[in-house]
């Protein structure tokens, strides 16, 4: 028979805070917390004092004042009389544009390089290792400047496209009558929307959803009834036919606007500026090298038994990759991919090195400089980037949850 007795109640003594392992960690954490609070209050106090001494105050009123400067790439209408707030939004959109495009292309580069690096072909796998090692180990800023210098010097000077004043033919003309690669950027045709043009776009977007719906239906049919129905052709039809019908029904509201040489440069069409191309390409190729490593690691993480088992079931190697290896590899690839996407978004702030007017260039650059509102601008800049990053993380986490191993 055992009688459980309470351990003798110890009275708490102050020295136990240091000597007793049960309390010691709390003591140290409390001290660290206190030190941190003191440190930040000194900083804050110092800032407030210095600002007061310099006669400055924190105020965001400048955001409503006219910006006074022009921005070359304008996703939304903007002119020098627009407010600093609008200039910041233009910058933010430019950041998002280049970050989004770079994420897409970096993923493509990364997946291709990652898969090929595991290729049995010695030359291909070595070439891919060289790509990965060269791009991963040289800072992206340097790549950015190299690529910018190359694009600015490889493409023909725009002067060669101009109509000479003596009436002779220009040295160069548009490729296929619609594209020009110049040292001021690449000029391509632009899609123009007529009055009802937006409906064609909506129809197309709806079709994309329709395709997903159809594929879901096909899968359900396969799982529930064991029937396979054709997927590829109907998907294509769903994708294209409604938009085409809409296009003709509405009297062809879509057009293309071709670049045409003006006095100095091409007018009309779409100009992809050298700064934009350099930034986009540099971010993609640099981050692609990291993604390639993630992809390779993801594929290697799937045990060899999986592909052997799939092969034993008679699957062809392409299907083994698509149906067995990649779905499992994705679980390993996605989490580091999120941080690569975040890196792209943050690294896009190097834009100013080539004069791409992103958020750092407008709000954190010219606005900050012309108004002198450094603290306000930088705080706002942090808020923008934080929002971007958290949103990307959140979206990617949703995707990650949808593909992760579902334990039943």
């Amino acid at each position, binding site marked *: 028979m055992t009688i459980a007795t309470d351990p003798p109640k110890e009275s708490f003594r102050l020295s136990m805070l240091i000597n007793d392992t049960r309390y010691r960690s709390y003591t140290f954490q409390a001290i660290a917390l206190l030190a941190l609070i003191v440190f930040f209050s*000194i900083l804050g*106090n*110092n800032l407030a*004092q*210095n600002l*007061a*001494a*310099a*006669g*400055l105050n924190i105020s965001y009123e400048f955001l409503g004042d006219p910006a*006074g*400067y*022009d*921005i*070359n790439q304008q996703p939304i209408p903007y*002119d*020098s*009389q627009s407010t600093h707030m609008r200039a910041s939004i233009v910058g933010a959109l430019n950041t998002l544009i280049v970050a989004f495009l770079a994420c897409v292309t970096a993923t493509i580069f990364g997946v291709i390089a990652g898969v090929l690096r595991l290729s049995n072909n010695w030359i291909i796998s070595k070439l891919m290792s060289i790509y990965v090692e060269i791009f991963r180990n040289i800072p992206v800023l340097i790549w950015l400047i190299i690529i910018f210098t190359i694009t*600015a*010097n490889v493409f023909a*000077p*725009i*002067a060669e496209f101009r109509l000479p*004043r003596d009436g002779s033919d220009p040295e160069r003309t548009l490729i296929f009558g619609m594209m020009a690669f110049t*040292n*001021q950027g690449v000029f391509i045709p632009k899609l123009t929307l007529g009055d009802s043009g937006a409906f064609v776009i909506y129809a197309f977007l709806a079709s994309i959803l329709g395709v997903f719906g159809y594929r879901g239906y096909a899968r359900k049919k396969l799982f529930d009834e064991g029937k396979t129905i054709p997927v590829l052709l109907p998907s294509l039809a769903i994708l294209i036919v409604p938009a085409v019908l809409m296009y003709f029904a509405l009297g062809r509201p879509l057009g293309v606007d071709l670049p045409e040489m*003006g*006095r*100095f*440069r091409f*007018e009309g069409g779409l100009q992809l500026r*050298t*700064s934009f191309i350099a930034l986009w390409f540099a971010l993609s190729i640099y981050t692609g090298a990291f993604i390639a490593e993630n992809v390779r690691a993801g594929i290697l993480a799937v045990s060899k038994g999986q592909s052997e088992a799939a092969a034993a079931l008679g699957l062809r190697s392409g299907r083994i990759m698509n149906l067995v290896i990649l779905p499992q590899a994705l679980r390993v690839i996605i989490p580091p991919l999120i941080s690569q996407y975040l890196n792209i978004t943050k690294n896009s702030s190097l834009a*100013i*090195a080539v*004069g791409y*007017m992103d958020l750092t*260039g407008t709000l954190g*650059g*010219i606005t900050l*400089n*012309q*108004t*002198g509102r*450094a603290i306000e601008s930088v705080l706002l800049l942090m808020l923008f980037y934080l929002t971007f990053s958290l949103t990307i993380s959140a979206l990617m986490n949703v995707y990650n949850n949808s593909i992760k191993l579902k334990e039943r």
Partner: protein
Amino acid sequence: MKKSVFLGALTVAGLSAGVAAAGTLDDVKARDMLNCGVTTGVPGFAEPDANGVWQGFDVAVCRAVAAAVLGDSTKVQFVPTTGKTRFTALASGEIDMLARNTTWTFSRDVDLKFEFVGINYYDGQGFMVPSALGVSSAKDLDGATVCIQTGTTTELNLADFFRANNISYEPVPIETGAEAVQQYLAGACDVYTTDASALAAQRANFEAPADHVLLPEIVSKEPLGPLVRHGDHEWGDVVRWTLNALITAEELGVTSVNAEELAGGTDNPEVNRLLGTEGTLGEMLGLDAEWAKRAVMTGGNYGEIFSTNIGEETPIGLARGLNAQWTEGGLLYSPPFR
């Protein structure tokens, strides 16, 4: 007791941070070195020579201040700044003064809280284009691509000019003057615009300066001058009167060559007050009597500085124009030394 010591330390830390804004003159003397912000390199205005020694029209102002305050024109630490970094560098105390072809504007003076101590170059914004472009007026530039330095008055004037004339342009924003020149020469932009003096200075360095023309329009007023932080009046006075001393010296005919001799005493009382043989002007500034003499003997008076660095005998070849003495029909007019 411990607690009160700690709180005391906190207050001291907080207070001393506030006080650091004033007392630049004492700081400079204690450091025995003047931190002077200049450009990252504009020929004739501020550029290191082959031996790495900074030379130029703006540099001369820094050297004159160092000579006046520290008695040695080489005791200057030059800090290269871009259009974007210059104001932060000055406001944060990284530099004691900025002499970097900076335009005196209302908002920089009042809102950014700086003190322009004077004007050492009356300028205006101009445009440069390759002659091959066949443009003869800035109003013909509709649709052109223009290289501009960010964080300058240049980009604001440019926007205003094109807007006022109802024409459009494609801005290419660039950090430093050197990069702008490189891009302009590579044809990445058709037009380069900045202060007319800087255009002339940079064109002088081109391989074929004659292939580029300055358009006749001057679209703004750009009074360029040295500046210090707002609120430190003693230091502001030292820099202001050093600049005035250089200008007055030219007006009174005091040069680097004859200053020593004139300091022996003349029958012009203003020369005597300037050179410290009469009155106590130096003392009032917190300096010694010979401060202005040393400033003038460093690189010469304003006229000498102008002609050795950017004048008509140099490749840059700027005429005095508005920057002549008021007695010669220009705008240079220093308040009297009295």
